[in-house]
């Protein structure tokens, strides 16, 4: 590790790096070490600046510094980076904050602001200027608060106050909602507006309290405890947006412990979306804003309730309808059964049999008639063969007296009597000449 002590020693200022040398050289690799034994080496400016930069960056005391000062020459570039100087009465240092850090920055400083920055010391090689690479920047005073916040948070977390196993679910349809907030704040107005619109069935109990200043934590604790006596379905602890100091009451340990001890589910809605307070970690649910907290407790709104009532009634009507139709089906089955047993059916069967018999009788009669007709035809035929026209055809004649009497014997006529003779195709008259 300790391969090149000489040049390192001459370039390192022991006042700046009072650390064991071995700690500072690990990443150094310079081309000109070989000349060390011939007196002062000759550097290019580039090499020198790079070496100095590496020296600065390998000193870890300089890699995590917190510096207080006044902002001057602040410029936010279109690239998103910030450039400014920090100064005090006697000195100044250039600072840069890269866009990736700027994006997480809640507060934008202006020239003259007293701030505290965290970051690391480096060298801008092109200019040979050393500068602070700033990772975070707060108004002065907030830095100390932030450390206090982190310590309390770590302590309560270690105690298990933030455990997800402790978190209770919110009641789906709270009837009684406890609010711990300022009676005069916009937060209360916003929450009441939302609850009026979404959950007008509910009852709100306001436990008024100061929400900032040194008296606030004790008042918040009192308000929480008084509300807990009334056992609302849920408690919202809320405050509108403000600076870190404004929100500080919600990072108070007393408030955290009182909130953790609440017998009903709690929601925190403190500040804006980007603000996190200890109360947020302790509450069963953290809402990003007071309005969001009001919306969380009214997740089932009056319109949803109306729809639920309608749906329940529809199911009731459907169930009744199904029940009725089931009864109707059963009734119909019984009716069929009954009909099968009834004399009406017997009668109908008898009537049917009668109709059948009638039909069969009709068929029989028709048959008889046909037989008779056939016999008649046959007789007519026979009659035709042996009747008078056929006899006349064979040459016989019928002789009648003028009165129509048929002459059957010689004795029937007198000489000179006029008679009519009928042959096959007509009649003619004759006179009796002899007898």
């Amino acid at each position, binding site marked *: 590790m300790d391969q090149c002590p000489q040049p390192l020693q001459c370039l390192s200022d022991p006042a700046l790096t009072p650390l064991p040398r071995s700690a500072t050289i690990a990443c150094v690799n310079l081309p000109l070490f070989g000349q060390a034994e011939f007196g002062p080496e000759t550097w290019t400016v580039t090499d020198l600046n790079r070496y100095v930069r590496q020296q600065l960056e390998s000193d870890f005391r300089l890699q995590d510094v917190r510096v207080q000062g006044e902002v001057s020459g602040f410029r936010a570039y279109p690239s998103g980076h910030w450039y400014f100087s920090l100064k005090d009465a006697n000195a100044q240092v250039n600072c840069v904050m890269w866009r990736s850090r700027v994006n997480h920055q809640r507060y934008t400083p202006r020239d003259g602001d007293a701030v505290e920055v965290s970051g690391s010391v480096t060298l801008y090689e092109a200019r040979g200027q050393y500068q602070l690479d700033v990772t975070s920047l707060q108004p002065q005073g907030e830095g100390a608060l932030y450390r206090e916040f982190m310590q309390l948070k770590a302590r309560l977390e270690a105690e298990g106050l933030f455990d997800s196993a402790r978190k209770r679910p919110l009641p789906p*349809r709270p*009837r009684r909602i406890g609010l711990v907030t300022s*009676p005069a704040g916009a937060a*209360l*107005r916003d929450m*009441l507006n939302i*609850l*009026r619109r979404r*959950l*007008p*069935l*509910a*009852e*709100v*109990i*306001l*436990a*008024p309290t100061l929400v900032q200043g040194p008296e606030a934590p004790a008042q918040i604790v009192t*308000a929480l405890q*008084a*509300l807990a*006596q*009334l056992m609302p379905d849920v408690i919202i602890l809320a405050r509108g947006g403000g600076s870190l100091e404004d929100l500080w009451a919600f990072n108070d340990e007393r408030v955290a412990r009182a909130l953790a001890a609440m017998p009903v589910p709690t929601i925190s809605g403190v500040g804006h979306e980007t603000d996190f307070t200890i109360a947020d970690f302790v509450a069963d649910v953290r809402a990003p804003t007071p309005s969001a907290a009001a919306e969380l407790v009214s997740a089932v709104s*009056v319109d949803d*309730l*109306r729809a*639920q*009532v*309608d749906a*329940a*009634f529809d*199911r*009731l*009507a459907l*169930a*009744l309808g*199904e*029940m*009725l139709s*089931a*009864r109707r089906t059963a009734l119909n089955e019984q009716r069929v059964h009954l009909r099968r047993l009834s004399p009406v059916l017997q009668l109908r069967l008898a009537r049917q049999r009668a109709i059948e018999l009638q039909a069969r009788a009709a068929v029989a009669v028709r048959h008889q008639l046909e037989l008779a007709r056939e016999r008649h035809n046959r007789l007519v035929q026979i009659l035709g063969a042996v009747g008078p026209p056929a006899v006349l055809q064979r040459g016989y004649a019928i002789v009648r007296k003028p009165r129509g009497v048929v002459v059957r014997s010689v004795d029937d006529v007198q000489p000179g009597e006029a008679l009519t003779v009928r042959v096959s195709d007509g009649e003619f008259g004759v006179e009796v000449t002899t007898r």
Partner: protein
Amino acid sequence: MTAKSKSKSKTGVPPAEMTFEQAFEELEALVEQLEAGQLPLEESLALFERGQALAARCGQLLDSAELKVKQLVGEKLEDFEAET
């Protein structure tokens, strides 16, 4: 008839005197009872009529509901008049 009087004693509160929660809970219970489909016809019809009245009560409460806001003053609850 005995079944009817039994159910009546269970659900005897006039809907007009019920809160939304009470009316809605009973409505849901009636739905389940009726959906089970084991009740005599007459009781089913009575349940349905009761449900109808409960649903109407719920709707009326939802329509007329106005958020009640009270304020804790010491140990006492007082009406809170919010400036609008």
